[in-house]
């Protein structure tokens, strides 16, 4: 299985994630890209700061890759990137790409992957407003995705 796991201060290169999974035997590539939003509950966000426990975050990405390969054995590649540092509004903060021979597995594994990243990745997010800032925890939803 092809894998790429990144914690990066540079802008996430979504095209590079795709390229990392290029495989003439895999017809399906599902991707999710999370971008920073300009508002939280009506309050304007100026920019965001992400902070990671880098070594553990990369380990968690590897664990997720192993889990996905077990749940969907036909998956041929997984690429994950998470941005750290100051991230401007509208920029990608996280991206996950999953390749497989067929679309069902790629789509289901991608949806599962972003759910697990939100729940497990040791990354913290601070929203910076004009008049202050706030650490924002993820609300962990149940994994209700089907298609496994």
């Amino acid at each position, binding site marked *: 299985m092809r894998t790429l796991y990144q914690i990066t201060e540079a802008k996430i290169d979504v095209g590079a994630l795709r390229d990392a999974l290029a495989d003439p035997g895999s017809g399906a590539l599902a991707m999710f890209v999370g971008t920073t939003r300009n508002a939280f509950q009506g309050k304007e966000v100026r920019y965001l700061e992400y902070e990671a426990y880098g070594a553990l975050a990369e380990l968690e990405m590897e664990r997720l890759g192993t889990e996905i390969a077990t749940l969907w054995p036909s998956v041929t590649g997984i690429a994950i990137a998470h941005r750290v540092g100051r991230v401007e509004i509208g920029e990608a903060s996280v991206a996950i790409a999953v390749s497989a021979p067929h679309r069902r597995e790629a789509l289901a594994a991608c949806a599962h992957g972003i759910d697990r990243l939100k729940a497990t990745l040791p990354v913290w997010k601070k929203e910076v407003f004009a008049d202050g800032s706030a650490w924002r925890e*993820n609300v962990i939803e149940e994994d209700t995705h089907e298609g496994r």
Partner: protein
Amino acid sequence: MSGRVVVRLFGPAREAAGAGTVELTLPAGATAGDAVAALAAAHPGIGSLLPRSRVAVNLEYVDRATPLRPGDEIAILPPVGGG
């Protein structure tokens, strides 16, 4: 173990403590929970975060009863917000 250990702090815990690493001196037989308690005593500002934080030792999540060994890397992980 006994002696000094380094605790890494992240996110709101780091901000509340005003530092990304804190050195603690712990007695022989200290556990991860003892390190958390010593941290709360040294930095009262992060006290409310600690019950909701996970603890990792050497990149493995541990429970509070886990004994520490010299040279362990202890990390305090508040609820995450990635993505």
